[in-house]
């Protein structure tokens, strides 16, 4: 049996969550979360930790040099730096609108890289 104490990062509240696993690595108990997202986060964190990614992407022909972007859903934590390589290679033509997809299905994760601001 193993006990993992984690801080939930699903929202700014930062609840302390305790996850208990049996010897086979199966989750037997989760407590301390205060919402459903928190439980989901805690379960994922001990089995396949995920993070959302935010960065910027180069804009071509726009009023700004870069546009902020985010991953549409969280991606596996270990892929963050590989994902950054893709983000750094990408670019988008102006005008850019919130939600415009810059990279579809990032590294096969199913998450898209989408713009999060308006650039003329």
């Amino acid at each position: 049996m193993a006990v993992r104490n984690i801080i939930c990062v699903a929202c700014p509240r930062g609840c302390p969550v305790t996850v208990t696993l049996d010897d086979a690595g199966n989750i037997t108990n989760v407590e301390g979360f205060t919402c459903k997202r928190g439980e989901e986060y805690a379960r994922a964190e001990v089995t396949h930790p995920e993070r959302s990614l935010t960065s910027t992407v180069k804009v071509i022909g726009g009023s700004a040099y870069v546009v902020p972007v985010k991953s549409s859903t969280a991606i596996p934590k270990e892929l963050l730096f590989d994902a950054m390589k893709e983000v750094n290679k990408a670019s988008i033509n102006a005008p850019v609108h919130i939600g415009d997809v810059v990279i579809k299905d990032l590294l096969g994760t199913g998450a898209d890289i989408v713009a999060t601001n308006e650039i003329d």
Partner: protein
Amino acid sequence: MSKILNYDLVVVGGGPAGMAAALSAMDNGIPEENIIILERADRLGGILEQCIHTGFGLTYFGEELSGPEYAQRFIDLVEKTKIAVKTDTMVLNLTKDNQVICSNRDDGIYTINAKAIILAMGCRERPRGALDIAGSRPAGVMSAGAAQKYVNIDGYMPGHKVVILGSGDIGLIMARRMTLEGAKVECVCEVMPYSGGLQRNIVQCLEDFDIPLYLSCTVIQVHGKDRVTGVTIANVDDKMLPIPGTERYIECDTLMLSVGLIPENELSQQIGLEMDPVTRGPKVNEMRETSHKGVFACGNVLQVHDLVDFVTQESQIAGKGAAQFIKGAPEPEYVNCKGINGVRYTVPQRINKNNEEEVKIYFRVANVYKDKRVVVTVGGKELWNRKKIKLAPGEMENVFIKPEDLKEMKAGDEIVVSVEEA
């Protein structure tokens, strides 16, 4: 003679606070064409424009947004109305009879006569000079917010090997941003024995990237002639003085400071608003009206908030208050609020006892407390109490005062918020 305009309501600042306040005033009966927002940047949105990380909006919208996305929700709402917006506009002066004197490239200098003014200028970062950091004055020492602008808006790297002083949220967020963009963040030093940032940011901005957080530790010296070449850090004792023998040198080209935010109150001081020395913002009543009639304040100009969602909520109160004032409200009768015993301050600092709605009193504690009670008393009589597993200076707390309790109070009574043994 310069141009003179007349508006019911002038909102100074077009960030989240100003936009929410303007919209709320409109929702509370002020004609939209009689409201104007003045913004010094070239677009609405304020500091959210450079806060490209997610984590905004969970409380207010129930979804996780980036800063620009959160701002855009309000920009869209404002743009749908006839609320006037003047960007690239600087307010030069406020007068005691509620005139706003401002300047921009297109209109030159002009005066706006206002029935009410809402101050929503936000806050600014504490600079290096406010700290006793010895050493040279090379390039490469910058506030975390300035670095954030260079990276997220301008698209430039402000450094490659970074030490961050201060574990406020902006510092933590920038540790992750710089790392993802390819810089090496050597460490984050925090002079206090605890972090001033949110737990989640310590996890996902530092621990995820194996960036060490040194508590009770500070930068005592900057090295480098032209550009920073390194810093000396040292542990501090309980008086926050460096402990001899604990000094160590860290090579870096950048020192980022995230050592606190200060409300931006040049204008507030110009018209002599009564200020709270702890929040460093104006003292306000429950509708966020300052000591000057018809002048309201909300958002980070009033008190530095943890979450923009709370800024929005507070600004809606101010917008409503300004609307009530413009429409004509009866003279208030005040009871005062104050924090003692571990409670550093309260906002509001006074409440109209004739208020008909529940009043939320925000406060911050002075230290990290475990298993305590937050207690509200009036004239020694306990009005409210709640158990708290954890209280921390980095997290704003609140208590509620019911209108029926307010009615029972006498003008001049004092509502006291304190931290007590559980």
